[in-house]
């Protein structure tokens, strides 16, 4: 660019900048800026507000979606639980060390095995303590949750199962769906003995329904000590959180 042109460009930019900065703090003083200018400033603010409204709605829609999962899994309704997931063939579910199942049909088959509706079978699965982050474009989101589960077969020893989720969500035609659900069961224990004496290893892949992919993260549950990584940085410092190696 020619030196004079550069000089001119800088002048124009600074001139516009000055006008905006001078205008903002006195928007209500019609002697300084015109009604039309005040209205333009308001109109510009409205677009930002619309996005804010939508983010508020997104978070609650994701909470509702995730809680529908709690209720359908508790009810043993694998078919309906699978319909909470994205229609994409990449939609996935992964529990414990059981491997990854891809697509709605396989998700349904997996849930029908591990959380069936059958007399005497219990899997009381509330989802708790959500930390949700929606992407700025409002198309994807992530959520950390935890489940504390009362499980078992009537007449046998029951189970306590506990651990966090790191899930991903996607908005399809305006409706949030689960893109991937990953439940890290960091505690599995005998009801009779409790976790100090009756800890069990995280569930292994099903022999009669092998997963589409092996576990994406290999870990051992309690008494081993494992921290499922947080999808988010620290809410105040903005820095990643984890253990020192």
């Amino acid at each position, binding site marked *: 660019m020619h030196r004079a042109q550069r000089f*001119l460009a800088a*002048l*124009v930019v600074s*001139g516009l900048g000055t*006008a905006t900065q001078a205008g903002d703090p006195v*928007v*209500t003083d019609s002697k300084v800026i*015109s009604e*039309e200018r005040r*209205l333009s400033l*308001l109109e510009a603010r*409205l677009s930002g507000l*619309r996005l804010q*409204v939508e983010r*508020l*709605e997104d978070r*609650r*829609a*994701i909470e*509702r*979606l995730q*809680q*529908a999962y*709690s*209720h359908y899994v*508790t009810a043993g309704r694998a078919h*309906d639980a699978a*319909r909470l997931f994205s229609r994409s063939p990449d939609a996935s579910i992964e529990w414990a060390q059981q491997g990854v199942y891809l697509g709605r049909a396989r998700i349904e088959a997996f849930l029908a095995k591990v959380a069936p509706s059958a*007399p005497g079978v219990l899997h*009381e699965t509330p989802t*708790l*303590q*959500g*930390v949700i982050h929606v992407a700025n474009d409002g198309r994807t989101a992530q959520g950390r949750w935890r489940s504390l589960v*009362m499980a*078992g077969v*009537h*007449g*046998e*020893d*029951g189970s306590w199962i506990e651990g*966090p989720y790191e899930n991903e*969500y996607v*908005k399809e035609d*305006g*409706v949030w769906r689960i893109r991937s659900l990953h439940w890290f069961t960091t505690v599995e224990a005998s*009801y*009779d003995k*409790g*976790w*100090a004496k009756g800890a069990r290893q995280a569930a292994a892949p099903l022999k009669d329904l092998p997963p589409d992919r092996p576990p994406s993260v290999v870990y051992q549950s309690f*008494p081993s*000590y494992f*921290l499922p990584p947080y999808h*988010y940085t*620290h*809410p*105040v410092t903005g820095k990643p*959180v984890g*253990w020192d190696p």
Partner: protein
Amino acid sequence: MKPIKFLAALAFATTAPLLPAQSPQPDLGPRLARAAERVAAMDQRADRVADYDELKNLQQIYGYYVDKALWDQVVDLFADDGSLEIGFNGVYVGKDAIRKYLYSLTGGKPGLLKGQLNNHPQFSPYITIGADGRSAKARWQQWIYDGIHGAGSGGNWGAGTFENEYVKEGGVWKLRKLQFFQRFYAPYEGGWTRAAPESAYRYGKSKVKPSRPSSVSYAPYPTSFEPPFHDDRPEQAGALLSAGDTRPVAPAAGRSVSELEAAVRKLELKLDRLQAVDAVETLEAAYGFYVDKSLPDAISALFAQNSTLEILGRGVFIGLDRNYEYMRRLSAPAAGAMFNHMPLQPVVHVSPDGQSAQVRARLLVMFGATGRAAQWGDGTYENTFIRENGVWKFQTLMGTMGMYTDYDQGWAKKPAPMMSYFPGYPPDMPTSLKYEPYPANFVTPFHYKNPVSGQ
């Protein structure tokens, strides 16, 4: 560029923004109306978000009142024509019948019996607001851990599902129909898989005659029964709240630019306060996930500079350094150590100016030292939050002790005594509340009034 052209351009560029508006005012009417309509539409969407939050609070507040058998407070949450149906005990219609029934559960008067634990956590809200914005339905999970100290058993575990209806009257959400489907109610000894099916019928049993017999005939676990969903459309479970709103947008306010500005400012504050709900819920949950894993740096960084920390009977610790040292002393990451901290059921209220917030939450603790000890613990948080330089932080954290017990015994058999000062790490101030944990009956003061009665 020729110098003369350059100078002309320069003159234009520097003077144009400073020229007074000479042209006659254009008619802003249509633009103003369009903007006002947009504001009104957003306002309606924001109100629906607020409805969702209020409905969530309402059900969770119900749970905290039931915990302490504050039956008059529970009754006040109902609409006049409200009904209550718990487990297999028939339907009680109207406030008088509901009150009589609830009193009968604690010997004919409100308040817990001696040595009674009656905790009823509310989980998994699945809320559907009616198209008209004046009615709502919700499915919730409710767990129960209760018992009478010294009665022999360690207590009971229970679980089931609510399918409830709500009504908005005079701008306030109320319970219209509470229906709890009991899945099981099992003695602590042996738990749900060993319990006889009949054990479920013990729950909520009363000599007070119901207004109507049970509305649904079903059997508890181990029979497989699932209460029907009020909104059984999994493909739409993640739809936005506004998608279910069929109301026309209210006539727009703002005939002048000044009026529109005022409406926008009001909307901005409304959104700010709703975002605050999300921010403090996130902080509360993030705190639990960090305590789980013994991360003292991350925990103390959630707090404001002059914040205070008061947990169990350990006294008040002031400031970030003391907070950090406290957390560092609690636990360290190690194989065989479990320190699960679950802050649940957050009832959130944001101040009118959107600069501070209060949260009541239930704490559930799973403590473990492998081969040696396992414990259940519970408590109540009453925390406050402030916005410091635009960032939300904990201002005060106060966690009162409910019950802690050895896993092998159960709370009603062997509740632990108050956990007092750390040896060698005294607090900056003594405890602010004098109380004893379970089996004493202590009600952690509520930061809020009854949302319906205002009492």
